[in-house]
C-alpha cells in the first residue's frame, strides 16, 4: 500500500526567510504524481505545486519549488521569501494512474500535514 509521511507536524519561519517541508512516500509503482496542497485556516485546499515522477527536473512555481529524489522516495517543498499569507497546513499527496478504470484518475493519498506559521 502506498503511504505518505510528513515528519514535521509543525514549523515556523520568519517572514522573508526560506523554509523546507519534508515528505517521504512509499510505493512500488513507477508512474505516479506528487503534489503539495495548502490548506489555510478555515479556507479551501489549493494546489501549490505538482511533480510527475517521470520528469527528472524539479518543479517550480514562483516562490515554491520541490526537491524530488525518486530513488530516495523523497519530495520536499521549499518556500522562498516566506509571506504571512503562506501560513497554513501543507499536505504532501501522492497519486497513481489506474489503467483498469478506463483512464480515470487515481485517488490522492495524503500525509498528515505540516502546520507552517510565518511570523512577522
Amino acid at each position, binding site marked *: 500500500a502506498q503511504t*505518505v509521511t510528513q515528519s514535521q507536524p509543525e514549523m515556523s519561519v520568519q517572514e522573508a526567510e526560506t523554509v523546507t517541508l519534508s515528505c517521504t512516500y512509499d510505493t512500488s509503482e513507477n508512474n505516479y*504524481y506528487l*503534489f503539495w*496542497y495548502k490548506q489555510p485556516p478555515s*479556507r*479551501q*485546499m*489549493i*494546489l501549490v505545486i*505538482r511533480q*510527475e515522477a517521470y520528469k527528472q527536473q524539479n518543479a517550480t512555481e514562483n516562490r515554491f519549488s520541490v526537491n524530488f529524489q525518486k530513488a530516495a522516495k523523497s519530495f520536499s517543498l521549499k518556500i522562498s521569501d516566506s509571506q504571512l499569507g503562506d501560513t497554513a497546513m501543507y*499536505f504532501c*499527496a501522492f*497519486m497513481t*494512474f*489506474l489503467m483498469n*478504470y*478506463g*483512464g*480515470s*484518475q*487515481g*485517488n*490522492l*493519498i*495524503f*500525509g*498528515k*500535514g505540516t502546520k507552517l506559521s510565518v511570523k512577522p
Partner: protein
Amino acid sequence: DAGVTQSPTHLIKTRGQQVTLRCSPKSGHDTVSWYQQALGQGPQFIFQYYEEEERQRGNFPDRFSGHQFPNYSSELNVNALLLGDSALYLCASSLSPSGIGREQYFGPGTRLTVT
C-alpha cells in the same frame, strides 16, 4: 467560473441518523472524489465517481454511499452515523479521462458533527 461548491457548510446529527452531503463540481469537470478529514489529520479518500459510476473506493464501510447525477454533481450519504464520523468532508472535482495527474480542485467542505 464557479469553483467546487458544497452544501451544507455545517451539519449536526445524532448517532444512528443518516446524512446527505452535496457537491457541485467545477464547471467543465466530470469526476468527483470525496474525502474525509478528521481533525488534525490529512484527508482520507472515500470514493470517486465518473460517468455516474463509483470507480474507486477507499477503506470505508458500506454505510458510506454515493451517487453522481447526469450534470456531474454528486451526493455522499452516510447511514447509521457514529461519533467517529465527525469530520470535515471534502469534495474534489477533476477532468477525466486523460485526466492523469490533473489537479483535483477542492470545495470548502462540510463540517459534520455527530453527537
